[in-house]
């Protein structure tokens, strides 16, 4: 008879490291007057983002991020807020992914992307120790790695880069879509930055998600940023979109993409839309994968040893 493996996947010292990191994070926000909040984990609505799949439970959804509820708090008059809580993403399992993970998400009234990035840097300095942090625009990152201008790349250019990256297309659906190609190129470019801290900034407008878009420049960009540490993506932030009509438009685009891909299309969150119509104050927000950050602090080669019980033990 084989013995049942009931033990945690982490060392007992890891519990101390995790508790200390959580305490340091709470102290960080307390010092800055950012209020801790708790919002529902199981709710009637969820994201429509085509690349994020929710776990459905009893006709509701485990939240993939506390974003919608936190924005409703802000629209109702809450000050700058943060939350530490579990989020769930169906099927995201791998060395650096666990379908359930601890998210640190916070919103700062009156901040723009750059000011919030500075605060993210300060928190990471507290948790991992100080180190310099570069900023690289998205287009420049891909241009430097692949010698390509993504705004003028032909499908053939993208396909040939994907082939170099070992992309293997279905026999019946040969070419990667432009979105797929960019995702693949970004993943490769980020994996190359195996050392140090980098913010990828100024995303192309079609990857704005819920960031506002700056269009008063030659090449409009989304005020979105992503923090990558030692090749691992740690945080994703926005200078938040406040325009309710634009939000409704992006939700419709996401819903139609889901339809095209044959994915289920959850109903849109009318309460978020109503809150945003009422008025979301100007703010910036960021979501940070706490377990990954802890794994980097511990120097583990993946997320599992930073969790008490990873997916295969839970």
């Amino acid at each position, binding site marked *: 008879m084989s013995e049942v493996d009931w033990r945690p996947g982490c060392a007992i010292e890891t519990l101390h490291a995790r508790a200390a990191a959580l305490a340091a994070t709470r102290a960080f926000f307390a010092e800055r007057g950012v209020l801790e909040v708790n919002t529902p984990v199981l709710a009637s609505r969820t994201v429509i983002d085509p*690349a994020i799949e929710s776990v459905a439970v009893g006709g509701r959804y485990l939240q993939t991020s506390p974003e919608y509820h936190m924005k409703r708090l802000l629209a109702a008059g809450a000050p700058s807020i943060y939350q530490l809580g579990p989020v769930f993403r169906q099927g*995201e*399992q*791998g060395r650096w992914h666990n379908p359930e993970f601890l998210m640190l998400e916070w919103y700062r009234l009156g901040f723009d992307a750059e000011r919030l990035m500075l605060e993210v840097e300060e928190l990471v300095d507290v948790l991992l120790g100080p180190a310099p942090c570069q900023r690289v625009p998205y287009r420049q990152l891909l241009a430097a790695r692949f010698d390509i201008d993504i705004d003028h790349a032909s499908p053939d250019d993208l396909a040939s880069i994907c082939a170099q990256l070992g992309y*293997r297309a279905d026999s019946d659906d040969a070419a990667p879509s432009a*979105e*797929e190609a960019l995702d693949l190129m970004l993943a490769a470019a980020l994996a190359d930055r195996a050392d140090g801290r980098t913010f990828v900034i100024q995303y192309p407008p079609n990857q704005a998600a819920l960031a506002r878009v700056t269009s008063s420049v030659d090449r409009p960009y989304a005020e979105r940023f992503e923090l990558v540490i030692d090749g691992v993506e740690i945080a994703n932030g926005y200078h938040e979109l406040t325009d309710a009509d634009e939000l409704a438009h992006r939700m419709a685009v996401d819903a139609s993409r889901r339809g095209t891909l044959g994915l289920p299309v959850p109903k849109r969150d009318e309460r978020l839309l109503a809150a945003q119509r009422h008025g979301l104050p100007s703010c910036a927000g960021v979501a940070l994968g706490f377990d990954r950050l802890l794994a980097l602090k511990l120097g583990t080669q993946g997320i599992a040893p930073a969790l008490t019980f990873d997916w295969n033990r839970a």
Partner: protein
Amino acid sequence: MAIYATNEFRPGLKVLLEGSPCSILENEFVKPGKGQAFSRVKFRNLNTGRVWERTFRSGETIEGADVLETDMEYLYNDGEFWHFMKTDGSYEQFEAAAAAVGDARQWLKEQDVCSVTLWNDSPISIVPPNFVELEVTETDPGMRGDTAQGGSKPATLSTGAVIKVPLFIEVGETLRIDTRTGEYVSRARD
């Protein structure tokens, strides 16, 4: 044959990739930010031993390969093929071509048990035992008394393999060889 999706790719799974049987070494789930999920997979091509890296869209499928690793006793070489027999009591025999035997040929001694990889019931690779004992058929005369100090000389073994041996080794002696490194280990004990 079975079809496997990317979330079923595990190290050791045998699949057919671009016409070749491969063993999965590593499957990394990759998902940039809010982007689409991929599997970055390393394969060992079982025909050539080379490592291939491919990236798949998450959820994509590939066909399994009918690959089996099994112990077989080496019987003889008929000049063209190397013949092996299963050790499971079935006495079932297989013939392996030179491409499948590869460098293992220089370590094959009759009645030794090897690990044979079969694809669609044909041997595609042979791994000899980690240690084999082979007789020296040719080497310069030994030097009496020189048993402790370094220094080596080439020796030809009964299989035709040429290895480096200590100076005191003589023709007719049986030596223990590590097949993974091709190095002399010791004199064989009777």
